[in-house]
Each structure stands twice: as structure tokens, then as C-alpha cells.
């Protein structure tokens, strides 16, 4: 973390929702008309982190972990139940106009463009709403249109665009005011692999060109691996991990994989570790990381190995393990 003041500062942030609840059935429905019961649900539970200016941070967690709630609190849409937040020195919940002009929140499943008209007309409305001087607007719009390769799309009614095309156009609309902080909530959800890659490239380019701070949630680990050196993992509302992506693997994965290439032989490998894959002349083993040195030496000694590589398990597998953590175990892990 650099010494300059953080772009995003979160300290003990908590959000508790009051959720109405009742039993099923007509009698319970009638009873709830006069005596409604509520239950407190802690969506975000005392999380603390900083994000430096220009940093791209992956904000990970399974569904219902509290990611979107956190992003909504950071963008000023939700009022925190407890804790303190500042973004670019502003308190988001005050919803100051100057603050709203410096941020954007892009949600993969929501759109802000007017459905029936070409996006270019919605862009002009955003110019007026964000008070962008006309010459700056034209320059930024043309730059974003070029970066996103949407020159021919912005003149078509939004309803005629594919999901991926619409997302690119949404990005353009949401960034016309050149926000310094981007909150991206599943920006690539539902997009095909090619479109996901293009959106990723665009986010990286925008971050570098405008030195923007980005907090990104995504279920696609390819997004996270491509964009984020640092990740924050939240689970059951609590902060589980904050650090480098590589450190996440070290912290949560006790296993490593060994890929082998052998000259001939049908040797039984089960004694060395869990056989994940076996092909003629090659195999992949999963071995506890404390055993790696011993097993590697043993393999090289026992077999006619032509190539051997030791790798961390795929990030998807690690994240899957982390997400499988039960609520009661989260406090223990994050303590």
C-alpha cells in the first residue's frame, strides 16, 4: 500500500437490513397484516480496507456475501448501519453532487440507457446531467467509442443491440464524465468469452489512461486474474482475505499439482499423490504442499521423467474452496 491517502477508505463498515418474515399459509399472512415481524440480517459485518488511487482491486465472494451491498454503500446508494467510509475524501452517504460526478457504478444486470433510442442520444443527456463542457464531451465520447469499438453501435436503438454490445455502450455512457473511481458489479456477467475479454481490456486501458481506481466484483476468475493484483474476499459479510492474488492461493490452498511427462511406462502413481489426470506418457498429480520436495525427488528417482512442473492449483479451485467455508468458520479464518 502506498503512503498517499487512499482513494477508498473503509473502516468497520456494517450494514444490517431489517427483513420482514412470517410463516407460510393464509393464517400467517393475515396475522402479519397487523403484527409484522422483522429479522435483522447482517449483510456486511465490520469490514475494513483501503484502496490506493489508481489501484484495481478484485472484490470477491459468493452470492449473498455482501459485495453489492458494499458497493452500494461506497457509491452512496445505501446508508451504512455502522462504520466509516470515505471515497476521494467524500462521505458517500451525503450524496454530494461533486462526489457523484467523480464516481460511477456499473451493474452488469442493470442498464441506464433509454431502451428505444440510439445510445448517442442518451450520451448527450448524460453530458447535460454531468455538466460536461461540449468540447470535452465530444473528445471523451469519441475516445471511448474508439476504445470500445462501438462506432457503428451507438446509432442503433439500444433494444436492437446484443447483450455484449449493450454492455460496451453502457460502459461508454457511464464513463463520459471520466469518473476517478469505478465500482463495477459483475460487469461481464452473461457475456461470451470474446466479449468478456474485450471488456477486461477496456477496463485495464481506462485504468491506465485515466489513473482511475477500480473496485470490481466478478464471478469470472479470468476477469480477476487479468485485472487485479490484489483481491479482497468477503464471505457471510466478513472480510476473509485482503492481499495479493498469489498470496490468496498460498493462504487457502494446501495442495499443489505436479505435471509429469514420462518416457513410456504404465507405473502406478497412486502412491505419490492423488492422480488428477492420466494420459499415455503424461499425468497430473495433486500433492500436499508440505510434501512437494519429497515427492518430486522420489518421482525423479523412481521413474524415467522427461519433464516435471510444479504448479499452484487453478484459482477457480481455490476460490471454490474459500466460498465453501461455513459461516461459523469465517470468523475463525478472518480473525
Amino acid at each position, binding site marked *: 500500500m502506498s503512503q498517499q491517502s487512499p482513494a477508498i477508505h473503509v473502516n468497520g463498515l456494517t450494514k444490517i*437490513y*431489517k427483513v420482514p418474515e412470517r410463516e407460510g399459509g393464509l393464517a400467517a399472512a393475515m396475522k402479519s397484516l397487523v403484527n409484522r415481524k422483522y429479522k435483522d440480517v447482517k449483510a456486511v459485518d465490520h469490514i475494513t480496507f483501503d484502496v490506493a488511487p489508481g489501484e484495481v482491486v478484485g472484490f470477491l465472494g459468493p452470492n449473498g456475501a455482501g459485495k453489492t451491498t458494499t458497493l452500494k454503500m461506497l457509491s452512496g446508494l445505501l*446508508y451504512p448501519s455502522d462504520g466509516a467510509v470515505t471515497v476521494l475524501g467524500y462521505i458517500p452517504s451525503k450524496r454530494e453532487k461533486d462526489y*457523484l460526478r467523480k*464516481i460511477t457504478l456499473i*451493474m452488469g444486470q442493470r442498464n441506464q440507457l433509454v431502451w*428505444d433510442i*440510439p445510445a448517442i442520444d442518451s450520451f448527450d*443527456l448524460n453530458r447535460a446531467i454531468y455538466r460536461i463542457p461540449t468540447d470535452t464531451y465530444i473528445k471523451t465520447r469519441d475516445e471511448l467509442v474508439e476504445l470500445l469499438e462501438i462506432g457503428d453501435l451507438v446509432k442503433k436503438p439500444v433494444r436492437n443491440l446484443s447483450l455484449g454490445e449493450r454492455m460496451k455502450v453502457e460502459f461508454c455512457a457511464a464513463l463520459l464524465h471520466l469518473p476517478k473511481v469505478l465500482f463495477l458489479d459483475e460487469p461481464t456477467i452473461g457475456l461470451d468469452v470474446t466479449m468478456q475479454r474485450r471488456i477486461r481490456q477496456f477496463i485495464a486501458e481506462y485504468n491506465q489512461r485515466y489513473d482511475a481506481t477500480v473496485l470490481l466484483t466478478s464471478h469470472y476468475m479470468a476477469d480477476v486474474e487479468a485485472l487485479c493484483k490484489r483481491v479482497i474476499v468477503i464471505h457471510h459479510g466478513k472480510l476473509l482475505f485482503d492481499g495479493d492474488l498469489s498470496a490468496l492461493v498460498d493462504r487457502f490452498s494446501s495442495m499443489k499439482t505436479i505435471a509429469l511427462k514420462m518416457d513410456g511406462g504404465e507405473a502406478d502413481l497412486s502412491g505419490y499423490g492423488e492422480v488428477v489426470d492420466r494420459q499415455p506418457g503424461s499425468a497430473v498429480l495433486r500433492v500436499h504442499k508440505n510434501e512437494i520436495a519429497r515427492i518430486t525427488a522420489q518421482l525423479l528417482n523412481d521413474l524415467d521423467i522427461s519433464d516435471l512442473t510444479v504448479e499452484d492449483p487453478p484459482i477457480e479451485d481455490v476460490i471454490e474452496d474459500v466460498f465453501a467455508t461455513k459461516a461459523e468458520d469465517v470468523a475463525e479464518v478472518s480473525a
Partner: protein
Amino acid sequence: MTALLDIYRSRIKTTFAMAAQYRVDMALQILGKFAEPVIYLVVWSTIANQSGGEVSGYTVPEFAGYFIAWTLVRQMTIGWDPYYMERRIRQGEFTPLLLHPIHPYHPDTADMIGWKIIELTTVIPTMIILTLLFHPQLSLQGWAVAAFIPALLIAFVLRYTLLYIMAILGFWTTRVTALFNLLFAIEFLLGGRIAPLETLPPWAQSIASFLPWKWMFAFPLELVIGRLTPQEALIGFGMQALWGVLIFATLTILWRAAVRRYSAVGG
């Protein structure tokens, strides 16, 4: 102020672009606009004819004048219906609007103004056709016609804002429609929509004077057809001003509370 005007101008442009996408829909709207005043006209003309040619001081040609002017006032004072606003709140469509550094009231109002301008292109032909069919009798006076324009604009702002307030209630209950239906029934009767207020019993007319709807509908209408004295017109503007203060104060307070409410429960 210039920035706000720029938002209104840009939003109205967007609305024109949307309307251009739905030309057939616009044409069909003419038919809809035609139907309601024609029904009232036929009913009241029949009643007047059976009552010796007059009801509560309105002759058949005067009823025609009332309902032809009614077509313009009605169309110009339509606001967002709370069904639409309720859906926007329930489906989270308000979220992006709350991230804009501008009160959503402004782009919404600009959108509505855009539709009004477009609808004039269908309302005026409708009024001409009704005039040719029903031969109205109007006592048009220069001062009243001049005063009608601000009276109609204020009526639009008041009614539109009142509906907006009702829609904001959607932040607390996602079933604003029931309340809207109740108030709409009162407005229908005591606003001059179903019949001129003079056809109501005196006690109902007194109640109507204390409620906002008369000043959002019957007042500009009676003004333009020449049924008000200059003194009555001044009282009308005074009542519009009074309701304006009340309605905008309510909007301001309610909006702050609505955003706090939304911030507390999410959406």
C-alpha cells in the same frame, strides 16, 4: 440555471427521439383522446336537451365549449401515472437515477414536457374535429385567454408534482396504486373532469374549492371558456400559488425521507 435548462433541453430532445420510434402508437392516441370528451358531450347534451336545453347554467353549445377546452386541459395536465413509477421503484430502475448528480424530478419533468409538446400535434386536430362536429359556444375574452396560458402551465406543474409525490410513496409501499385509485375517484368528481363543477350541489362545490384538484383542472378550463370574472381569476391564481407552496414543500420533505428510506433498505 443554464445547466438545468440544458438538462431539460437534452431530455426533451431524447423524448422527441423516443416518440419518433412510435409513430403508429402516436396515431392511435388520437382515437383515444377523441373518445372520452365525446362520451361526456353526448351524455350531457342529452341531459340538457331533456331538461329544457340547459343544466346548471350550461346550454348544449356551452357544454360543447366546456368539453372541447377540456380536451386541451386534460391532455396538458396528465402526469406520470403512479403505476409506471411504482414499477420503476419496484424493479430497481431508480438506482441509476439516484447516482446522477441531479434530482430525478428534473429529467422526468422534462420528459413529460417533451410528450406534451408532441401530444399538442394530436390534441389540436382533435379539438378542431370536435368543434366542427359539436358547434360550441364560447365567450372568449382576450384577458382570459392570456391568463389561461400561465394557469394551464401552473395546473400542469401542480398536478404532475402531486402525482410525483404519490409515486414517491412507492419507496414505503410498493402498492401505491390503491391510493391513487381512491384519490383519482375524488379528482374525477371534484376536479371538473366528469362534468362542470357548477352542475354539482353547492356543498360539493364548497368542498371542491378546498381541495387541490379544482385548481389543477376546472380553474384554467372555466377561465378560458369565459365563465370567470377577473376577480375570480385572481383568486384562482392565489389558490394555485397556495397549493404550489404546499405541494413543493411536501415533495422536498418526502424526497429526503424517501432517499433515506431507500438508503436504509436498499433496492
